């Protein structure tokens, strides 16, 4: 890899990251809090790549034999692959396919008492908080409350009258994603996998609390749908465990 190649591949990488940042598409791959580190990295890549390209052009003019020599190992060409994959496959983040491969989130023990919910009306909630509350709240504050959740559709033959409303918890990048799932019943007309929806739901408390079932816990928070509206992809497609 000669100097011009080295500069060009760094510029390429910088442009790819810059574009992901500009369109917000980076949110499909990493947590939102990576925005600033990514912006800084992009700036460094563009500057380094730019300087290298200018140096290479000067070298080409002043000492062509030097310009042709290798200044980095060929493995560096691999850095073009993320761009190739982004262009050809255009991946769009974690969805039903990923949810089928990884065990859903089981809430770790939470401290009681929970923050009280607003007195009345619809409560908007992260799927994370909904699950924690459904499983660990001794006061059962969710009972009878109308809750608004946002997530995508994952169909499951075990839930013929609905689907699993799914949101992913991602702490760094999509490779560590864990599905947060709620079994949504009475949803009406079937929806396609990976459709984003905003669902107004009511919790269906289990006969025996999840944490007191015999043997292994079976935690599947069930809810009944009141209203389901298709939604666009949210700005931040993932929830953060922080």
């Amino acid at each position, binding site marked *: *890899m*000669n100097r011009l*190649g*080295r*500069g*060009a*591949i*760094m510029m*390429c*990488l910088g442009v790819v990251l810059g574009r*992901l940042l500009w369109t917000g598409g980076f949110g499909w*791959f*990493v947590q939102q809090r*990576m925005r600033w580190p*990514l912006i800084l*990295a992009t700036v460094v890549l563009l500057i*380094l*790549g730019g*300087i*290298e390209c200018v*140096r290479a052009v*000067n070298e080409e003019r002043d*000492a062509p034999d*030097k310009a042709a020599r*290798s200044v*980095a*190992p*060929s*493995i560096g060409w691999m*850095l*073009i*692959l*993320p*761009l*190739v*994959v*982004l*262009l*050809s*496959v255009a*991946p*769009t983040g974690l969805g*039903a*396919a*990923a949810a089928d*491969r*990884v*065990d859903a989130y*089981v809430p*770790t*023990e*939470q401290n009681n008492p929970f923050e009280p919910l607003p007195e009345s009306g619809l409560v908007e909630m992260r799927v994370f908080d909904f699950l924690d509350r459904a499983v660990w709240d001794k006061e059962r504050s969710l009972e009878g409350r109308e809750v608004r959740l946002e997530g995508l559709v994952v169909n499951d033959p075990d839930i013929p009258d609905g689907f699993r409303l799914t949101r992913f918890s991602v*702490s*760094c*990048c*999509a*490779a560590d994603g*864990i599905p947060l799932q709620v079994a949504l019943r009475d949803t009406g007309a079937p929806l396609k996998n990976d459709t984003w929806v905003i669902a107004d739901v009511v919790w269906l408390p289990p006969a025996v609390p999840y944490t007191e079932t015999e043997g*292994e816990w079976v935690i599947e928070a069930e809810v009944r749908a009141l209203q389901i509206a298709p939604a666009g992809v949210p700005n931040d497609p993932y929830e953060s*465990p922080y």
Partner: protein
Amino acid sequence: MPSTEDGTPVLEHAHDHDHAHADHLHDHDHDHHDHGSGRFALGPWSLLLPIFAALLLRNRIGWFEGETVRLWSTLFVSVCVQAVPFLVLGVVISGLIAAFVSPDLVERLVPKRPVFAVPSAGLAGMALPGCECGSVPIAGRLVSAGTPPAAALTFLLAAPAINPVVLISTAVAFPGEGRLVLARFLASLIAAMAVGSWWARRNDESLLAQLRHEHEREGSRWSEFIDVAARDLVHAGGYLVLGAMAAATLQLIVPRSALDVVADNELLSVLMFAGLAILLSICSEADAFVAAGLPQFSLTSRLVFLVVGPVIDLKLVAMHAGVFGRRFAAIFAPVTLLVAVISAVVIGQVLL
């Protein structure tokens, strides 16, 4: 010879660089291909070929629409995007080391005897926030700058495991399990120092030969900085991409859910978590959340996951092989794995 004093060092001295310079820290196998083959060397314009191919293929071929391909791509791109800021931080530091840290300075700063050098290098690891991708080029440059390899390797293993960012995310992932955070810190630090001490005894310079080129600085310090940072970035980055491909593939092959079978057997679950840590190649800032999501396993076996993951996994083996050499990686990886597992199990027994 011209030097920094004139304000425009970078462009001015680009042509002063010579080969000895560029030869520093890199893989000779690869270089031989590039060398002397002016005609066949890939020029920057060949970058356009794969891009055009990708655009042509887009939407043409059914299998690009397949769920598995899309998921693989998501995982692959995420690992790369996540790693780039840490890699950039790493190569900026490695560039600064190459440009501004002379062997004399290293000699004054790093204690001579491994008994002191290894623990201080381990604790120095606390100062580098981030995950493992950044510490590989830094450790490579530290060796080139004259740091005893035992100390540089201790730093390499300790930095991604015991820095504050990683410890805080572990505490967040395991609320109320303060002892697990302590256990992670101790087990990782001990493992790093044990590997460092092992290297100090072994002291096989030949394995790290590719890092030990006599190196004369030419051009200004800033020109040197840019040159080294660019070189390390492209070098380590290439191996990172390779490792990300392997990690994405194995994440698809090894589902995280088919593991309940071994939950009751402590020995099997320890082995399984060591294997998972290697195959999944999850960032050290994120692994605690994955471990927290598998509550059916004992804390000790999950501690193994948290201690092994930051020191050895697929993408790290690829990067070690690239930066330090293949023979080095072939010896270093199994020793590190063994030491990390033992350290985690012992600390787990004592503390958890």
